[in-house]
């Protein structure tokens, strides 16, 4: 049941416990209990909104994807440096990848300058960071499964057999 709730919430985090209960044929109290439980356990770590580039306030937001090569630490591997980088509020996403570089970061700021400063003053100077490669995001086409450009409205028949 938890997996079904998670799959519903991943598609639409705004679903109420009642709506989830209706879809899964369980009671609203059970649905609410399971959701709260997963929030407490840290299975569900947060909820967020997916907004378009035209959303108010977005015009001054700058986003960059940064590939980072690091030297793994003898005891902590990549974790120690990764956790250190993750603590910066400018970093919105961070993961370890296989391939030609190690960490992939998404960094957000209010201006190109602000992001550039973060990279040169904070990120590149961290012990263990060997190199960085920064790409500024020009346009988003899809995020978290949501396509950012809406299709034209397509009118279906109202009634048919």
């Amino acid at each position: 049941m938890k997996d079904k709730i998670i799959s519903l919430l991943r598609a639409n985090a705004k679903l109420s416990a009642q709506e989830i209960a209706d879809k899964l044929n369980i009671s609203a109290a059970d649905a609410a209990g399971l959701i709260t439980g997963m929030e407490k356990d840290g299975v569900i770590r947060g909820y967020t909104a997916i907004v378009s580039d035209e959303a108010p306030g977005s015009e001054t937001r700058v986003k960059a994807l940064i590939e980072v090569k690091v030297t793994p630490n003898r005891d902590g591997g990549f974790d120690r440096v990764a956790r250190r980088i993750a603590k910066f509020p400018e970093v919105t996403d961070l993961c370890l990848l296989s391939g030609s570089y190690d960490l992939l970061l998404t960094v957000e700021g209010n201006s190109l300058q602000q992001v550039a400063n973060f990279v040169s003053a904070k990120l590149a100077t961290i012990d263990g960071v060997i190199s960085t490669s920064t790409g500024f995001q020009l346009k988003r086409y899809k995020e978290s499964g949501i396509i950012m450009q809406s299709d034209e409205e397509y009118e279906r028949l109202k009634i048919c057999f």
Partner: protein
Amino acid sequence: MNGSKSASERFIAPHIAALPPSGIRKFFDLVNSMDDVISLGVGEPDFTTPWSIRESGIYSLEHGHTAYTSNLGTPQLRRAICDYVEKNYHVSYDSKSECLVTIGVSEALDLAFRMLLSPGDEVIYTEPCYVSYPAEIRMAHGVPVPVTTRCENEFAVEPEDIEKAITPKTKAILLNFPCNPTGAVMPENKLQAVAELAKKYDLVVLTDEIYSELNYDNDHLSIASLPGMKERTIFLHGFSKAFAMTGWRVGYVCAPAAMTAAMMRIHQYSIMCAPTVAQEAALEALKNGGNAMLEMKESYRSRRDFFVRGLNDAGLQCLLPHGAFYAFASVKNTGLSSEEFAEKLLRTEHVAVVPGEAFGPGGAGFIRCCYATSAEELQEALIRIKRFVASLKG
């Protein structure tokens, strides 16, 4: 202009002139004249065709696949269809001689009737049913013989009722389970009994299994797979409902070679072949559309559960339909006919449902609500239906 209309009417063949117009045209016009209606009146999925299938159609056009295909349909699609039917319905058809790709089940049914029927031959079909059945039988100069399915039998057809309708003129029995509009499925023992009747009286069975993937509570069983039935069964299916491909117009018929060859002759002279782009998209549906189809099915199932519960809460008696995406609810306890109910509901609450009479006299006292409608709209529709039913009692 009336004069010229009546003058030209004399040219219309009597069996076509006699086709009944839809009895609820006025109701449909009313629905179409309102623009803020929540419509539970459609007969198709609310999903757009899954992208990989649409993309295959685009690819087909992009690469210039714009010519006719073989009359039967592309060999690749026919092979994929026969594999799919064998795997899911447990009947083995030869893709070279026993499978024909058509423009939806509608064309397949038309071919089958034209191939089978001589003037005056009778076809037994269950009612309430999809509106085209009796008309298609008449267009092929046959005589439609309805057998009413009843709520107390969960709208499955009683084999005894079929046997009572059999005459020396009976040529075929047409089945459609899961059923539009009732959502009914056939229990195995009743399906076996119908198969025995077909063998006893040497009848053909046409089985329209367009909703067979959308069978929520049971494994689907095709009558074609029962012992001794393949030789007398015409299996009709397509992509419209399970793969949300209604507008592509692509379906198929599987039948023993001689019947397929005869249907193929009609098809080649009247149709040539199903659209090439739709055939290539359909092939993608069979190759890679399975997961998308199961996701859609799960979505219908969950909407069915809460919608049918909601209808009963609202005071309309409704059985849990085991298949398709329709709830067939009784309005008998409101004191209104289904047509009155539908019209008043539309006028006062702006919710459109289809009165059961549209599916034949056996549908009187019921309304068909399509739950392949967004969950938000279904929820709002339930609030309005509940308010409406309460207002009738008050």
